[in-house]
């Protein structure tokens, strides 16, 4: 009897399962439909800006322009059409690729043309669930690994493989050492850069209020330089840009009286000292944030790029007359802040070789200077420097050290995040909330930039380019709230939870907040690299045009002046972006737990305190995943 009942129940269950799965498959797969969309294009948005179809649908799009020539290029499908007032564009295709694809304007229609974007969703979107499960798996693995090991490890190892204090000296090779000790280096790269920047400035002023996407200045600075900075220079070499930056050249020449030889150690100018309590990243946090207010102008208008660079050059000269050494670079250059913070993650560093040699050498020529070179222009103490934040790679210490005790080292990513605190860190109030807020505001600025410039929302673009004063002020207010209140607030909440869960009484909330914010260094680099992919892949082909015709005078230096706008790999771009975000997460998980170990006194406290931060990292990464592909 019971068996009979069980059998009937089984049949019923099977029937229900079959029915439900049929229903589900009907819903999820759907039936291939004909879908028709009428998209109206107007500077600088599409209406509708987001369209959703299912895999297999036959999609027909009619493009209507309401003002000037507009195009529609669909990432991944490579389809393109043009519309013009009175002449419609049309495309028809089978939606056989799934995911989120951007469609972009393919015909220069105004200054914000490169930012004119809409989204096409072809469901089912496999990348988002795949990425999300990846994030959860990595987090679970990281948690399991952190609970498995017993006791505090004697040595931190990156991913359990490379000891974090491992280093390999590149200056052991005579060629490198001789190059670094030569007074013509890095002068020669700076002069080459000076030549490039002369062209940029000239193109900027000649380009006027014209189209940025056909201007040498705008393209080299905001497509090539920015992308190189975020994807190569900072993560690999640190402040490589500062080594070759031409902006301080004039000021430094005036201070020293010589270009190649060693002249005055003390500036001829007022030689004032910058107040100690502001020798940290705070001025740079504020100044970079202020400079992003104008991003809707200087990334699209040649003259705005010219004015920005011109202001920086003039400021660099004035500051170098009033203040000592490289005060401008340390406290005022807008890009110096994030380069400094993110350089702590970089693969390379300048460090002393043997601490004993430095100890015996009582006259610190690396700080004071001698007849071979200048005392550290960045006012670091090279003999005890242990972080990259304030090392501009000017290589003077290689020249001034009489014992050849300075080295250029390869080391594992993120070594500096665990460096010991030094006297100057406390004296100048460094490595506190200033660096935490630098990392947090960089995340906020990424958010504003990504949503405004790579997102599909026309009204946000209008706010960023200040079509109305009210809208622009609202954009700035929004940026302030996100960068300084909301994002730090979220981390504060989880830092608070971390402290509560660790049940410690010895560590202050501020210490937890600051220490664990360093886990955001690889995260920041990764999301900015993802953002950079969204700039270089669709718009990199403009570089070919501007190299051949830098001043828009009709030149054709390399025969590529008429190369058309050609987006590359935009079909797999979301995959590449998700990959970079994942790499950032892996580093954040590995380094984050070690930061927790360093923050709390015992292993048990660190483990418990690590859990909220892990949850925080998972939440923000799910959010980034949503931004890039969801």
């Amino acid at each position, binding site marked *: 009897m019971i068996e009979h009942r069980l059998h009937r129940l089984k049949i019923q269950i099977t029937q229900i399962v079959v029915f439900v799965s049929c229903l589900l498959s009907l819903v999820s797969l759907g039936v291939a439909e004909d879908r028709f969309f009428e998209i109206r294009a107007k500077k600088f948005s599409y209406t509708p800006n987001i369209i959703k179809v299912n895999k297999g649908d036959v999609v027909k799009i009619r493009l209507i322009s309401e003002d000037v020539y507009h195009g529609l290029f669909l990432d991944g499908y490579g389809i393109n059409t043009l519309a013009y007032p009175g002449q419609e564009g049309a495309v028809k295709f089978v939606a056989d690729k799934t995911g989120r694809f951007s469609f972009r304007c393919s015909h220069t229609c105004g200054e914000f043309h490169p930012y004119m974007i809409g989204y096409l969703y072809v469901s089912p979107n496999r990348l988002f669930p795949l990425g999300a499960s990846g994030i959860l798996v990595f987090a679970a693995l990281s948690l399991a690994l952190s609970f498995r090991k017993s006791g505090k490890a004697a040595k931190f190892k990156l991913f359990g493989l490379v000891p974090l204090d491992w280093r390999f000296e590149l200056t052991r090779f005579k060629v490198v050492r001789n190059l670094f000790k030569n007074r013509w280096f890095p002068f020669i790269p700076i002069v080459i850069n000076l030549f490039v920047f002369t*062209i940029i400035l000239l193109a900027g002023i000649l380009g006027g209020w014209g*189209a940025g996407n056909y201007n040498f200045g705008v393209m080299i600075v905001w497509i090539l330089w920015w992308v190189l900075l975020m994807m190569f220079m900072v993560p690999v070499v640190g402040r490589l840009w500062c080594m070759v930056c031409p902006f301080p050249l004039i000021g430094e020449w005036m201070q020293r009286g010589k270009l190649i030889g060693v002249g005055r150690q003390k500036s001829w100018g007022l030689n004032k000292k910058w107040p100690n309590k502001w020798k940290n990243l705070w001025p740079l946090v504020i100044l970079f944030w202020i400079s992003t207010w104008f991003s809707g102008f200087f990334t699209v208008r040649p003259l705005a790029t010219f004015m920005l660079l011109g202001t920086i050059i003039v400021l660099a000269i004035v500051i170098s007359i009033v203040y000592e050494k490289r005060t401008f670079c340390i406290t005022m250059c807008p890009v110096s802040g994030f380069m400094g913070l993110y350089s702590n993650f970089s693969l390379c560093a300048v460090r002393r070789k043997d601490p004993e040699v430095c100890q015996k050498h009582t006259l610190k020529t690396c700080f004071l200077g001698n007849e071979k070179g200048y005392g550290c222009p960045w006012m670091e103490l090279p003999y005890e420097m242990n972080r990259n934040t304030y090392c501009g790679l000017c290589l003077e210490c290689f020249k001034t050290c009489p014992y050849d005790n300075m080295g250029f080292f390869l080391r594992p990513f993120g070594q500096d995040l665990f460096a010991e605190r030094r006297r100057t860190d406390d004296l100048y109030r460094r490595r506190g909330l200033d660096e935490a807020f630098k990392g947090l505001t960089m995340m906020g600025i990424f958010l504003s930039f990504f949503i405004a410039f790579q997102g599909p929302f026309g009204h946000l673009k209008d706010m960023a380019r200040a079509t109305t004063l009210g809208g622009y002020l609202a954009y700035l207010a929004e940026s302030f709230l996100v960068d300084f209140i909301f994002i730090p607030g979220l981390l504060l909440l989880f830092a608070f939870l971390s402290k509560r869960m660790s049940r410690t009484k010895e560590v202050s909330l501020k210490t937890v907040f600051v220490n664990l914010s360093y886990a955001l260094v690889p995260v920041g680099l990764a999301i900015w690299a993802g953002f950079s992919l969204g700039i270089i892949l669709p718009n990199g082909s403009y570089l070919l045009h501007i190299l051949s015709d830098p001043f828009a005078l*009709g030149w054709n230096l390399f025969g590529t002046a008429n190369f058309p706008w050609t987006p590359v790999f935009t079909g797999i771009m979301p995959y590449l972006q998700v990959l970079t975000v994942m790499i950032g997460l892996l580093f954040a998980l590995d380094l984050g737990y070690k930061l927790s170990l360093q923050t709390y006194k015992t292993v048990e406290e660190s483990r418990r305190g690590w859990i909220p931060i892990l949850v925080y990292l998972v939440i923000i990464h799910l959010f980034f995943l949503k931004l890039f592909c969801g």
Partner: protein
Amino acid sequence: MTRKTNEIIAVALIVLSTIGTVIGVFAVEKFRRGRIYTVELIARQPKYGNWYPKKFTVPYGKETRILIRNIETVSHGFAIPDLNVAAKEIKAGEVVVVKFTPDKKGTFPFMCTVWCSDEHLHMTGEITVE
């Protein structure tokens, strides 16, 4: 090399890479202009400056080469209907050279032929053939 020659070389390099570059660009452009075209015309929406120059004169019976630079952010076109001269769409940032030999004397209108803005119809100028 003495220290003094080093300094002189360094200063020379700086001057060459800055002032030298600027002078070089303008010199090359001046030389090129004489060979490639006779008139330079800048195309902009009426709101941002319209054609520049709006009026110009070319000689009768000689080949005229008009270099049109669209230094703006939208597409423009160019035509002189009375002389049967036209350039197709000139995209933002693009530069084209229109060649023709005027066979009529007088003053003729030229205009933009691509809908560039609300004031597109006002984007006109005058060419005089003497």
